[in-house]
């Protein structure tokens, strides 16, 4: 696969994360531009069966690296396996999701291979210079296009930023045993709430700020649930103890890019905007007509969120009922 594109799949508990399909889809577009093959590398334990489906997202070859030590995300084990694979196969481009785990692995991989890495990219294009990656800087105040000189070019994609495309390929699948090498980080335990939609992967996010006035987020939760979305919070809402810090969106919280972001009782401080400005459609509900959030929103409603949210919920129910 020398000079091909290598896409790194990510799984949790044996199930692919959504970003895996985004990584595959974008890798397919890159492989088409470069006129080369796309290989997907799956790492984990007992992944062979589920891995076949990656052929539907454009993989020409699927390599399943099996090892029980890869069931959990331990950055050094993953870095060892990917680095060995890259050295052996010499892909031109390596694409990975910029998840918590993907960021760790890509940063170590770039250092080990002395290769260029564009982190948290929101768009990829080609021009006469070659592959150009766009990424946000300064909390979303600047969009920077970077060129990667060196090999392989490592690209970590921001979750939710790239479109998923179904491109059926007659792909081959190969299971390989791998040596995870020396790992210095030991997995102890994990606590995942699988009932909760992850903010960074959610299509819709409904966020409550200090305007919620208290820990009762039931209106926000009801709308989020109706939209199959996630609940977000401003830092003030977290500081008040109304929400856990894992809900915080912003400069010192999560950076999200859902299709729909609904900010309720959030003033729109620059540190909040830093976390959600790459959302596709932004809606703000605020009783202060001069709240800065309105200047960053696509649609705004001036009014009391406690009066407006129940009405929105009813209207959305009507639409959902129709479909």
């Amino acid at each position, binding site marked *: 696969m020398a000079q091909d594109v290598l896409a790194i799949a990510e799984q949790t508990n044996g199930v692919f994360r959504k970003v895996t399909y985004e990584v595959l889809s974008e890798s397919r577009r890159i492989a088409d531009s470069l006129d080369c093959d796309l290989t997907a590398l799956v790492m984990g334990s007992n992944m062979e069966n589920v891995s076949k489906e990656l052929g539907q997202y454009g993989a020409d070859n699927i390599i399943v690296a099996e090892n029980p030590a890869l069931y959990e995300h331990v950055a050094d084990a993953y870095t060892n396996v990917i680095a060995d694979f890259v050295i052996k196969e010499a892909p031109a481009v390596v694409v990975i999701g910029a998840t918590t785990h993907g960021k760790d692995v890509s940063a170590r991989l*770039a250092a080990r291979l002395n290769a260029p890495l564009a982190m948290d990219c929101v768009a990829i294009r080609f021009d006469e210079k070659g592959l150009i990656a766009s990424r946000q*800087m300064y909390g979303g*105040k600047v969009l920077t296009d970077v060129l*990667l000189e060196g090999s392989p070019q490592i690209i970590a994609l921001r979750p939710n930023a790239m479109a998923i495309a179904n491109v059926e390929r007659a792909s081959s699948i190969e299971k390989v045993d791998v040596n995870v090498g020396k790992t*210095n980080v030991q997995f102890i335990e994990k606590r995942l709430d699988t009932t909760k939609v992850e903010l960074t992967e959610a299509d819709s996010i409904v966020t409550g700020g200090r305007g919620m006035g208290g820990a009762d987020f039931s209106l926000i939760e009801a709308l989020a649930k109706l939209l199959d979305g996630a609940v977000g919070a401003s830092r003030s809402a977290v500081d008040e103890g109304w929400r856990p810090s894992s809900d915080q969106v912003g400069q010192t919280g999560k950076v999200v890019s859902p299709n729909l972001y609904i900010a309720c009782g959030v003033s729109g401080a620059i540190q909040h905007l830093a976390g959600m400005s790459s959302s596709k459609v*932004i809606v703000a509900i605020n009783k202060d007509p001069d709240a800065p959030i309105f200047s960053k929103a696509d*649609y705004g409603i001036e009014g009391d969120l406690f009066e407006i949210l129940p009405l*929105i919920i009813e209207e959305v129910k009507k639409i959902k009922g129709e479909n």
Partner: protein
Amino acid sequence: MEIIVLLKQVPATESLIRIDDDGASIKTDDIKWVVNPYDEFAVEEALRIKEAHGGSVTIVSVGPEKASEAIRTALAMGADKGVLITDPGVSDFDSLIVSRILAGALKEIPFDLIIAGHRSVDKDNSQVGPATAELLNIPHISMVIKQDITDSKIRCHKTVEGGTVVLEMSLPALITTQRGLNEPRYASLPGIMKAKKKPIDVKTIMDSGFDGDPIGESMVKTIVMKPPRERKDGIMIKGDSNLAKAAELVRILHEEAKVL
């Protein structure tokens, strides 16, 4: 416990960021510079570990001479000493070069634990911590919200998508910080006075322990910087009643924006 904090000076988030005439850098004249917020968590955690286990806290930064102000802030919070590695071209270095410079310097400074921020809020790269650990051939755990050190091992809770994971590694090691780890203290007035007498060792790259010669070119090249996509003037939804406004919003989201 010898603790190193990797600290970067960054523009305060309130600063207006203007793109320079070259189209590939930002204007720096009227920016207010501060300690990267994630690195404040790092300084605070280092001080707490020192308070519990003894030892010292050394701040290491790669930056322009002005970055000594940020180091001084950390010294005023209670850190013991600072090292500034400075170079005129520093703002053009990519993350891997910065990591190589840091790793070079840290080969000369004994340490048990390195604490870095999860990301710098200017480059937003989340790279320098793990890359520096890789170059030093030590393990790392990122996005830590809780840590315990016993018998030269560090056990950390880190946030991941959908929850938390507990991991453990032997020292020497590197961790990166995340909000939730602690609330950074403010520098007290006596702290500020004391910080004036604390040493900051200012070095050039070549006398900082850097063994790559030459530094090498950045492999990640900025071609152009652009302002983000403007949202076409936000539409305020009009209506005679809240019900009319809510219905109109939902109609637009469904029929026009097609996000419902």
